[in-house]
């Protein structure tokens, strides 16, 4: 090998090292840029009112996003109620029970689901829950006004409401369109759909079993739209399941098999061994996985657009729409008002701080994962 050749190889080596280093450092750059931008744009709008007040009406300066902050936490709690138990138990199954073929399919499915764009989740829950439940009213037709295309319906609670019927509204496939097809006394379930800018009522003739079950639920439902806190929590919870399932499986696999054998050799039943020895040993890892999943869904916007929808006021029932920080940011950012823009920046700053806090908490938890309890 010539000296020249050697120098050339050294130069190539240095160049590649520098190139990989630059690329690695580029990871940090976006975070710094995002953070810097958020602080310069949003920090000035963060004040006490921002955390404690409701949004002000359009045109009024000030107010806060208290309902969105509380909403985000509400949604996270609801999502956790679904996602944590199902995800953790699913992970336990994957790790501890050997059904190779089934486990392969479960893993594969979970990985595919983890890659599904979040807006798709929103659409799925929108179709499954929000649309079928979009029922303001069900009851008996009290009166019909063909002139004004008006039907008055009284619900079991005794409240009567009138609905405008579009000329094209198909009430009943057999009886044709129009209000004539629903004489007084007919039991109807009324759903809305948007026709241009108008809300049009529609009777559901033959609701499916699924829809009927949801409608029973909807008896205590006030929402005209079908958007609800429950639907928002459901979509985030569904997204959490595969995330938590896979991380739980991975940390359980890190538990040395010697502990399992030792427990079984003591005559401890398998499920007790799993619950008291394996899961307990891996608790920190499982908590880490749960927190990372929470951080991931806490920032989701797209699925909430279809489900939780957003709300400028406090949400008092789980069947009402609810606000969340990402939704607030989205709605404020696309608004034409400078004050809302500022608040959107501030909201984004709070959101990223929240997610960062969770991540830092995870680092602290995982730092001493393998050290024992202090004496």
């Amino acid at each position, binding site marked *: 090998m010539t000296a020249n050749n050697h120098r050339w190889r050294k130069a190539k080596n240095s160049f590649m090292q520098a190139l990989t280093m630059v690329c690695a450092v580029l990871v940090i750059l976006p975070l710094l840029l995002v953070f810097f931008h958020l602080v310069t744009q949003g920090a000035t709008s963060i004040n006490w009112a921002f955390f404690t007040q409701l949004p002000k009406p359009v045109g009024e300066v000030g107010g806060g996003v208290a309902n969105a902050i509380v909403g985000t936490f509400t949604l996270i709690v609801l999502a956790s109620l679904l996602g944590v138990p199902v995800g953790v138990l699913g992970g336990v199954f994957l790790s501890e029970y*050997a059904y190779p073929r089934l486990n392969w399919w479960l893993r594969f499915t979970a990985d595919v689901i983890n890659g599904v764009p979040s807006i798709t989740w929103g659409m799925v829950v929108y179709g499954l829950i929000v649309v079928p439940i979009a029922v303001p009213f069900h009851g008996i037709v009290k009166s019909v006004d063909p002139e004004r295309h008006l039907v008055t319906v009284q619900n079991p609670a005794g409240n009567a409401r009138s609905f405008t019927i579009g000329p094209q509204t198909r009430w009943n496939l057999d009886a044709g369109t129009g209000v004539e097809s629903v004489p007084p006394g007919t039991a109807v379930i009324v759903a809305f759909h948007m026709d241009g800018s108008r809300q049009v009522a529609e009777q559901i003739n033959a609701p499916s079993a699924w829809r009927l079950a949801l409608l029973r639920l909807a008896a205590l439902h006030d929402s005209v739209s079908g958007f609800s806190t429950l639907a928002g929590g459901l979509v985030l919870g569904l997204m959490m399941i595969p995330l938590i399932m896979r991380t739980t499986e991975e940390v359980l696999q890190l538990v*040395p098999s*010697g*502990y399992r*054998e*030792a*427990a*079984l*050799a*003591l*005559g*401890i*039943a398998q499920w*007790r*061994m799993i619950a*008291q*020895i394996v899961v*307990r*040993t891996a*608790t920190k890892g499982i908590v880490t996985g749960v927190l990372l999943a929470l951080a991931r869904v806490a920032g989701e916007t797209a699925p909430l657009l279809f489900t939780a929808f957003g709300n400028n006021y406090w949400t008092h029932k789980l069947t009402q729409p609810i606000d969340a920080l990402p939704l607030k940011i989205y709605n404020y950012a696309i608004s034409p008002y400078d004050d809302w823009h500022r608040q959107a920046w501030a909201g984004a700053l709070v959101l990223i701080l929240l997610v960062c806090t969770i991540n830092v908490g995870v680092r602290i938890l995982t730092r001493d994962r*393998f050290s*024992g*309890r202090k*004496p």
Partner: protein
Amino acid sequence: MAAILKPMPNHPLDQKSGSSPALTVRGLSIFFGTHEVLKKVDIDIAARAVTAIIGPSGCGKSTFLRAINRMHELNPDARMEGEIRLFGDNIYSRDVEAVMVRRRVGMVFQKSNPFPTMSIAENVTVGLRLNGVRDRRILTERTEESLRMAALWDEVKDRLNDPAISLSGGQQQRLCIARALAVQPEVLLMDEPASALDPLATQKIEDLIIELKKDYTIVIVTHNMQQAARSSDATAFFYLGELVEYGPTTKIFTNPAQKRTEDYVTGRFG
């Protein structure tokens, strides 16, 4: 404990002591998939004595040990033929659950494995607690009793609530022995219990084994010839899944009947 058992004359120790064996193994074959790891093993293991299992790696000695408390069943490909009786009870009988067998046959592993989330005391009582014993008095009593039997009490009595993994390697292994003893098994299986320990800690474990045989039937797998010679009463030599020779330890080490046994114990192969 089943007391009415006919003496098994083919056991080398029973011939002189006349006591009945703790374990009678007949025609035991273990397969992992199509691979026959143990081939038709017949052996009687004496009660209240130490039986050493020796042989080169892969000879099936660990599999034999694990078959005694059905731990080999953790391998989904495992299949067994033959019969093992524990004081007369067929442990592979259809109505016997592996969990019940393991409560009667304890096990200590090569690598000490105290549960890292538990204190010293909790480790000792875990087998009782997870089998439903709640009485604190019993748990406290059994903690001391087991730790004393495992010759660990004096070293840990002032720090029972410390994490178990704060102990040294040798102490951890004795803790694992105490943990196995706490559920009061009839037989204690030891799979190379001292192979990861330094000579001093090994010495303590060996002393302990000799002490424990007053109350327990002990079966120990070891790679260490001196250990087998020092601490066991009977020795079984396994080779390629077969029981080659079985007899009193002194005979196996001084005057073996088989050439292969002699070659192995003198270090000419294995």
